[in-house]
């Protein structure tokens, strides 16, 4: 159940129409990788605000800790040492987490009614009370974000602090970011801010600097400013052209048609069976057996 101030514009496995009366502003978080110092304050703020505590893990030979997203770590920093030009080392540090797609693959693939919702402001949220833990959202996500909790078998991911946003404040990560690498506002304002940053980066010699707001998922509500927008894969494998998984297409298209056809056939068969044979009768031998 969303807070009153959040209108649900799409709901998994549901056909009820979305509310239309209120006009909400489309929001976005902008992560400027050229300003990020990888301090992990955002990771800590995320855990504090959302009452999460991941386990104290191991060092696995890199700075990334925890080493991957988990049901307790909804955002992590991914550190990539790359040399886009010989001898010009760069340490590209990307805050990874849910991108809040305009066309969310997780929602499209979710079979549990109301487990995944999209608000009219653009936030994609998981409502765990409706989640069956099937994991289809993981397959459906082009960014490999949701994780199933071993504790309760339900899927978790960044909520973009929908609870904070609902009362007019920014996500916890944006609040604590010491360098202003994470900013939050209307998607329009974030586009404008990104344009200024990209201009600065181009002046500093990053000719391919640009915004990551991929059209394959109709844009996202978490966007990146990249020095190398032509090579997003440099940033710990950020997908170049993220799209909904073909399996989701299958599920929503052909498979659903086939299933619907199958259902209809079953109903028809049952009808004809009833008309031709009459109601089923119990056989005593079968009961005993």
């Amino acid at each position, binding site marked *: 159940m969303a807070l009153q101030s959040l209108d649900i514009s799409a709901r998994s496995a549901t056909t009820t129409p979305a509310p239309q009366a209120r006009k909400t502003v489309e929001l976005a978080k902008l992560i400027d990788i050229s*300003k990020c110092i990888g301090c992990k304050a955002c990771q800590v703020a995320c855990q504090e605000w959302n009452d999460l505590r991941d386990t104290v893990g191991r060092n696995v030979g890199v700075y990334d800790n925890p080493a991957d997203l988990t049901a307790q770590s909804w955002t992590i920093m991914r550190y990539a040492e790359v040399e886009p030009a010989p001898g010009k080392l760069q340490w590209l540090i990307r805050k990874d987490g849910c991108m809040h797609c305009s066309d969310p693959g997780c929602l499209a693939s979710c079979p549990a009614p109301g487990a995944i919702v999209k608000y009219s402001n653009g936030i994609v949220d998981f409502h765990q009370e409706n989640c069956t833990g099937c994991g289809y959202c993981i397959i459906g996500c082009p960014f490999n974000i949701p994780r199933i909790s071993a504790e309760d078998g339900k899927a978790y991911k960044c909520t973009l602090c929908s609870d904070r946003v609902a009362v007019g404040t920014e996500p916890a990560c944006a609040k604590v970011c010491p360098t202003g690498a994470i900013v939050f506002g209307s998607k329009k304002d974030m586009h404008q801010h990104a344009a200024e940053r990209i201009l600065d980066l181009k002046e500093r010699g990053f000719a391919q600097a640009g915004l990551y707001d991929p059209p394959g998922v109709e844009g996202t509500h978490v966007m990146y400013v990249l020095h190398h927008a032509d090579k997003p894969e440099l940033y710990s494998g950020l997908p170049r052209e993220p799209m909904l998984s073909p399996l989701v297409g299958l599920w929503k298209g052909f498979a659903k048609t086939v299933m619907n056809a199958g259902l209809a056939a079953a109903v028809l068969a049952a009808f004809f069976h009833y008309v031709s044979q009459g109601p089923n009768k119990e056989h005593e031998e079968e009961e005993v057996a």
Partner: protein
Amino acid sequence: MTNHWVDIKNANLILIMGGNAAEAHPCGFKWVTEAKAHNGAKLIVVDPRFTRSAAVADMYAPIRPGSDIVFLGGVLNYLLSTDAINRAYVRAYTDFTFLVDEGFSFQDGLFSGYDPATRSYDKKTWNYQLGPDGYVLTDPTLQHPYCVYQLLKKHYARYTPEMVATLCGTPKEDFLAICKLIAETAAPDKTLSALYALGWTQHSKGSQNIRTICMIQLLLGNVGMAGGGVNALRGHSNIQGLTDLGLLSNLLPGYLNLPGESKPVQPQAGTDSPEQPMQSSLPVDARESVAAYIARSSLKPLRPNQMSYWQHFGRFFVSTMKAWYGDAATEENGWCFEWLPKLDKQYDILQVFENMNNGEMNGYFCQGFNPLASAPCKIKVSSALAKLKYLVVIDPLATETSEFWQDHGEYNDVDPASIQTEVFRLPSTCFAEEDGSLVNSSRWLQWHWQAADPPGEAKGDQAIMAGIFLKLREMYAKDGGAFPDPILNLHWPYLRPHAPSPEELAREFSGKALRDVTDPADPDRVLVRAGQQLNGFGELRDDGSTSCGCWIFAGCWSEQGNLMARRDNSDPYGIGQTLNWAFSWPANRRILYNRASCDVEGKPFDASRRLIYWDATRARWVGSDVPDFNATSSPADGMGPFIMNPEGVGRLFAVDKMAEGPFPEHYEPVESPLAFNPLSNGNEAARFNPAARIFASDSDSFGRAEEFPYVCTTYRLTEHFHFWTKHARLNAIIQPEQFVELGEELAMEKGIKAGDTVRVTSKRGFIVAMAVVTKRIRQLDIAGKKVHTVGVPLHWGFLGVAKNGYLANTLTPFVGDANTNTPEFKAFLVQVEKV
């Protein structure tokens, strides 16, 4: 910092070297980001590792640990040989034209006056030529071979780009590109802000690393300018306040020198140059009198019309003694001068643990200090602690020091049964559990308010200290003792004697009038009434009529109230000068030496970021800052901007203030991969710092490159704070386990992959940790040799919720800087092997 955090946003160029601001000061680093985003600033990072600061830099260059003076000396040479200096500034505001004693010389890495037996210098030739009037002789033509300009040029001519490449491993083209960027800030309207921290201080020549950047900034005219300065980023919340309040073994509050037993010493306006070790004790009648002590500390001007503010030393000293001893301090008893301890030698941390390890100490108090983890050479510290009768640890947490006697297996392998030291733990409060002021790197005294009650039996440090003091006083009163006067007469006016309040202590260090204080120009005019708080150190007197616990803090709590609690961030000039935010020592001045932001006529070098300027109609210095100057001294008076120096100018030639020479010279770290120092022509006496702090008892504890071929450096990570946050679960989650960093080339040679377990061994012990293999640490070509660097982050230990680990100081050498005795944690030798 000469400047302040917010002011970094005014810089055109920022150099981070000898520090890693993004990781160690992520919040303050926002001003670097701001300078880049809104002032078009460029950021240069020079570091042995490609750090998270480097990740957002415009230019990064690698450097071998311990070779910073070669790099910076190379920059000096570049600036001098290309004449990329702010001529107007340098001529008027530095000692460029001053003549130096013709006995001064430099040969094969040694300055004149070296005595190898004592490893120290007789500094009599490190001085100026004085005229019959007592003023320094100058040569305005700059032709005299002994003028500072000529000596400087000659000294640094050896620091060529080739020498930089050879000794630092910095590629020549990278070095020259950086020189070019730095040189651009010689323009009067361009500034460089230099940010450093422990990466420069923790060397056997750390003070000289910092001297070198000071000299660069003077040549560029960047000292006293908005967006300029030499900016020490202090590490530990309240380490700035600690040094300011004189919690150093050789200083009184406010950087007043502590009297020695014999040799006259001059006071120092900073932490960079405390006195040299004194000679052995003298009989009482040979000790200097209070008058002699004040006289030699009150520096007379060395050039005409100079302010030489230390000439008021007597006012600061007498007011301090009135704060300590109240009515007991009188002119007749020399303000209780005899009750002060007299230094026979320095008692820095290295000396203390040396003494302890020699069995010369019975007890030790550790307040907010974890020396088993923080002092060098853990095995020596551990052995020393085990020789104590008692150890008192005042800390909010159990520390490795308080548990040093416990067996923690491989991480602290000791036999508790063999350790007889009795340990007392007195739990104290964390900063959020108390009111008080903290001094940040900007020199701002910022009041803060208690947010939570301390747990259990924890008490504030004042209450703990007061409890110990009151008990001692009671015992002295009852039983007498060898020297009871300083204890029995200590001024203790607090409303709750067992728990002096932060407000009372703050009022005490800010200072008050004990009798009416009058205007010296008009004795009928009362400036402050008896009993009132003072407005500043200008009102201090040396006749016992004022009391002030720390003269540089004077005025922070005036009759206007607690100025440290101010939170008005209005910025009328738009350059971040928020004079009504907290209180900045001294005198609420935000940028030190701000007179130097104007030319000799008093016009700002850069009108777009004007600090102060001479307003001829009002006959005053006015502007966006409190003038660091006599506010009514007209430019025609010729007073220099460096008012704490008796010369009135900034010193390129440090005269006798430094232990190892008036010009910074490169010496190898005590443990170095090179068997000789090419800059000293291989002179063995000048291979490493000839005056570095080394104890004879440690001579077997240093490793050589044949056995320990790799350079090691220790450092901090942004996820942790020293040895505290391993107790905090969130910090432990984001950086859970000890690791070391190795370059790809070394890892390949050793067959080590990321995530393998490795052992790093020095002559003093070993640690075992996970390997992070990285492109960010490069193999360097040093004097024809391949040199690898190993990085050791230091946050782990045997207590806390993070995975247990080894104390990094298991590896580090018991060696200190020649001036400050700061240990050499940033450059030593190790061996590495896969476990």
